[in-house]
């Protein structure tokens, strides 16, 4: 049993024209204690929706199916009641705009203490002590806690948001594009803090981002998402050196590397519309290896051993011998 298990998660959004957008289409993954896993994909692939669904933070137009289990206990089946007791206490979240979502009229310390008091994990002096420790942990001097968010730089505010997420001692931290609006130098600082926290606190980290190199540097494992589903999951090194799904390979090839000499190529075409039923492989129109079966049959996520899995017909076709070399 893993710490956090997502099983066959589906999310639909009602559209104003009466249609439905199938944003997440049967997602399953596990997160173990202390593990750092990346959820990678382009805009609209459903990665943020997945995170919001795990925390029960979807808008009224959304409907959810499937299961999310924390320590073996289902947390979505009971609706808001069961999610609410887990949110922030067991599973916390930092999102991209977190640094701009701090309350400007409350001190940073007060904002870290607030969730502790709400969930009854600590109060008064004890809570203040924890807040100070958390700030130190994310690299802000504890005395700075009495200051207001506007006195902090963007990077410091993002760290403060991180400290806030950790206030109730969660076991899982969902970080949605935590460094996207930040400069490389500040990004490096935040990523260092995140990695350190996962190591020192045994925190499971789910890093959601579009930025492959960031995942490559931080995470051990990653799940690549496309059109609402996971198309490949496995150890980061294997994804990079021997991808089993053409999308993974092409996505790496589309990402320029500082010292890379090879050609950087974009992937032609655009992701399929999610408000219609997808027939066949969702990636087939952009794929350079598509064949007739891809148009008929939608590939499922096929386990390939060693915790790897990919949703591509090439993996059970005999022709796949030359495929894995990049």
């Amino acid at each position: 049993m893993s710490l956090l298990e997502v099983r066959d998660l589906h999310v639909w959004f009602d559209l104003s024209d009466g249609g439905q957008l199938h944003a997440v289409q049967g997602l399953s993954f596990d997160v173990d204690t202390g593990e750092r896993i990346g959820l990678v994909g382009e805009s609209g692939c459903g990665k943020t929706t997945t995170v919001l669904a795990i925390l029960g933070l979807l808008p009224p137009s959304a409907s959810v199916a499937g299961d999310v289990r924390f320590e073996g206990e289902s947390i979505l089946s009971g609706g808001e009641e069961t999610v609410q007791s887990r949110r922030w206490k067991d599973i916390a979240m930092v999102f991209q705009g977190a640094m701009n979502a701090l309350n400007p009229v409350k001190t940073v310390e007060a904002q870290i203490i607030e969730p502790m008091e709400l969930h009854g994990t600590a109060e008064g002096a004890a809570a203040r002590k924890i807040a100070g420790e958390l700030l130190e942990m994310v690299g802000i001097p504890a005395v700075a806690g009495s200051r207001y968010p506007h006195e902090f730089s963007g990077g410091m505010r993002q760290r403060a948001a991180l400290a806030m997420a950790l206030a109730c001692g969660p076991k899982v931290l969902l970080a949605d594009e935590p460094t996207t609006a930040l400069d490389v130098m500040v990004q490096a600082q935040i990523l260092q803090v995140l990695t350190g926290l996962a190591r020192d606190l045994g925190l499971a980290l789910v890093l959601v981002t579009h930025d492959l190199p960031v995942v490559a540097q931080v995470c051990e494992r990653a799940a690549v998402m496309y059109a609402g589903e996971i198309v490949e999951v496995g150890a980061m090194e294997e994804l990079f050196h021997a991808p089993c799904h053409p999308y993974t390979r092409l996505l790496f090839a589309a990402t320029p590397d500082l010292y890379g000499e090879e050609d950087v190529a974009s992937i032609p075409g655009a992701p399929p519309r999610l408000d219609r039923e997808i027939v066949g492989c969702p990636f087939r129109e952009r794929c350079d290896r598509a064949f007739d079966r891809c148009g008929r049959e939608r590939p499922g996520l096929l386990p390939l051993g060693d915790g790897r899995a990919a949703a591509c017909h090439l993996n059970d076709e005999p022709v796949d011998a030359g495929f894995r070399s990049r």
Partner: protein
Amino acid sequence: MAMRPDSGEGIAGALEAAPRGSGHRSWLWQVISESRQAKVGLAVLLAFVAIAILAPWIEPFDVHTRVGPVYAPPSRAHPLGLDDGGIDMVSLLIQGGRISLIVGFAATLVAMVIGGGIGIVAGYFGGWVEVVLMRITDYFLVIPDLPLAIIVAAVWGASLTHLIFVIALLLWTTTARIVRAQVKSVRERVYVERARSLGASNARIIFRHVLPQIGPLLIANTVLTVAVAIFDETALAFLGLGDPTRITWGNIIEFAFLRTAISSGAWWAVIPPGLCVALVIMGCFWLGQAIEDALNPRLKVSYLSPRVFRLRPLPITEARPR
């Protein structure tokens, strides 16, 4: 530096039912067709406008001819009775609506031109131009309405043109302030900056990029201003500051009031014109409010609110290899 190539906005964006800009007409039409309030408001307004236009053909009696006794109660021939001069009330209302609407629309037009112009110039150019124009606006904003109207009526005489002028003078300030705020935000948009870097003239940027963008707001504001203008006209006419030679709803109420309609129990001389004014104002308000609501994204549901998603059973899985 705002880098957000991806934050799930693809989904959020797709959900937003926000009207996307493919011309105002279709946008406005969408607002009207989606809101019952807007439809009712538009219907009321159109009805009054139609009656005003068709007045010479549909009024049952001449408004200058006495057709019966003073304050004759409603009867089959005269459903709303007669006024203090023995003139048919229905005909008076139809005629009065004509002038009231003309005053309302004309005053609004003048207010929109002045207010919109000043708002656009102040918001677009900024700097000292803005300071000077907005200071002038502030002065006009604090002029007490009634004394100004009394002075204009006393000095220049009470005529229709002066009435329109006074009402416009009282109303343009709000428009100027709203428009200025909106223009200030539009002029910061990247596509406006891009047009400037292309070498486009200010006039071109204002007419091709800024004005179309604030169009919907201007329309909403116009509709709401018409309501206020008609209300003002009625109020000023009731106080005897209107043009006494014309028939307007305000004048009808004023004359009825002066000539003891209330003490003689002739409610039909006072209440129907009052109701007409109220209806037109309500119509404008409904329509304007509906457009304004559609413009204001804050009224939409927030994204990160808990307790709202629905659970549903898993879909019957298509035969997928697991």
